[in-house]
């Protein structure tokens, strides 16, 4: 009886659907708040710029600068916040 109840997820009418993938969440966040301005380049170059942008975001938020989408960084991205970009473009 201790197994977790398997929840059924429902799409509620009128709900602004937000359950994105972590990558979508991170990319949207980095773009929206100015950490990543340049249009995405495909392949290795894109990974480098994302990592650099993640480090800038982690520095701004006082997080460990890992350059990857670790748990605390994703949690920070889900926190309520001000809409003014962190990096002026």
């Amino acid at each position, binding site marked *: 009886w201790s197994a977790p109840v398997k929840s059924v997820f429902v799409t*509620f009418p009128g709900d602004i659907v937000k359950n994105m993938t972590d990558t979508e969440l991170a990319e949207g966040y980095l773009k929206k708040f100015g950490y990543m301005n340049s249009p995405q380049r495909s392949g290795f170059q894109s990974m480098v710029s994302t990592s650099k942008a993640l480090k800038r975001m982690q520095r701004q938020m*006082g997080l460990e600068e890992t350059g990857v989408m670790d748990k605390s960084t994703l949690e920070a991205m889900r926190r309520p916040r001000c809409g003014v970009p962190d990096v002026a473009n």
Partner: protein
Amino acid sequence: YKTFDGDLKWDNRDVTYRVINYTPDMDYSLIDDAFARAFKVWSDVTPLTFTRLFDGTADIMVSFGKADHGDPYPFDGKDGLLAHAYPPGKGLQGDAHFDDDEYWTLGTGPAVKTRYGNAEGAMCHFPFTFEGKDYTTCTTNGRSDNLPWCATTADYSIDKKYGFCPSELLYTFDGNADGAECVFPFVFLGEEYDSCTTEGRSDGYRWCATTSNFDNDMKYGFCPSRDTAVIGGNAEGEPCHFPFVFLGKEYDSCTSEGRADGKLWCSTTDSYDDDKKWGLCPDQGYSLFLVAAHEFGHALGLDHSNIREALMYPMYSYVKDFSLHEDDIEGIQYLYGSKTGPDPTPPGPNTPTTTTYPDTDETDSPDGPTDPTTTATTRPVDPTKDACKMTKFDTITVIEGQLHFFKDGDYWKMSSESNGGLKGPFSISETWPALPAVIDSAFENTLARKLYFFSGTRFWVYTGKSVLGPRSIEKLGLPDSVQKVEGALQRGKGKVLLFSGENYWRLDVKAQKIDRGYPKYTDAVFGGVPNDAHDVFQYKGHIYFCRDRFYWRMNSRRQVDRVGYVKYDLLKC
């Protein structure tokens, strides 16, 4: 700290702001107060002053909006983006926008300010006990009129203190119906509505007609949100319906079942399975004061800080006892310098009285008028009797065209000439010997050349040097429940309005009696002014309602056209 490129800032020190619209989540007086306190965070540490405008264009225009609200940066529904603001400048620059899909509170759950009842506008006390049951929200239990109410102390049965909660059955806000309550059912575009609706609007705000037919009368107002109202979803503003059925199972409280984000929701009908009507349940909400203080930092020129404890850190976190962080202070003082005026806290008894005072005049000179014989009616100025240092007067009235300020046995006169100065203090007992030291209100019957003075439940009538009284105010026809007449407003044709508490009476001066049809509620006729003003008078064609250091000025069309400081605008300190 960081500033915006080019150190954008306001060149003027007296920054103006205007509140364009309101969220239905809180009483407008709580919203006004939150914004005023948020500005005070910055004026406390800089030479900046913030004056509120009620019309026209202000430096900082403050507004609530949802999703796409007209600028290039749409909001995103509940949570996520809470608000944003623009750096100083013209037009959109300097403005602050708040996401009205958020649940705005003071940060600790529903902030419910009551109206009417006997709690004088106090906040609801949750939980409260009523007939042995605990309530964490407003309730209509115990009433037959379906008006939600709450206790303003922990136990209604003991204290009997209560007030009514926001409800469209009690009032609306904005719109064009002067706050009148909704009329149900009402007809709109030929259809009948028996509750608030967002039909006809693209901004999602709930409204209702304040007559039975909007198509004919075009009278409407926005519905305040009840504390039990759901947020977002597709039934915003409606209360949860308990129990409700979801996926065949019955729920009698909010649940996160069915959601991947763990947010609590409820159905607003008895069956979500059938009706698919839902919304998110009220939570702690976001402190409008904290978010506003942050956004106003942007509007003054500060960018985001990377110090987690700083106000300008981009993420929201609730702080109970807020104080500005060093980093924020350094940033704002880098732009505007530090505060040069006196310490805002009044000098204590052991503070030397020679504190520098920003706007000195002859009454401040250390040796003052020393020779009483040369100023027969004024005595050497006792610093504690400097009118400019008073935060509140017993009464202010106009006698022979001059403003008179009464306080604790003394009074000052402000000549009506433009360059006339403040004269006094004079002694009340020397001029009107029969009067007590504290005068609650006074008015001049110019036709009969009589002066009426009120103190407590007594009044005096002076004709020149002769006096009639004290007599009880019951002789004028005021009820014995009136303990104090706080204001007197000449209305011409021998009529004077006498204010006390939330009510006013109309006195027929010649007949010395109160006209039929009174009392009336002050805020029903004089909307937009505090209903606990401690002074009301007429001066140069405007009506002034005073509370503490502030006055609300009303023009002849009964519109509040100015709010300011008694000290600067009336006393000219």
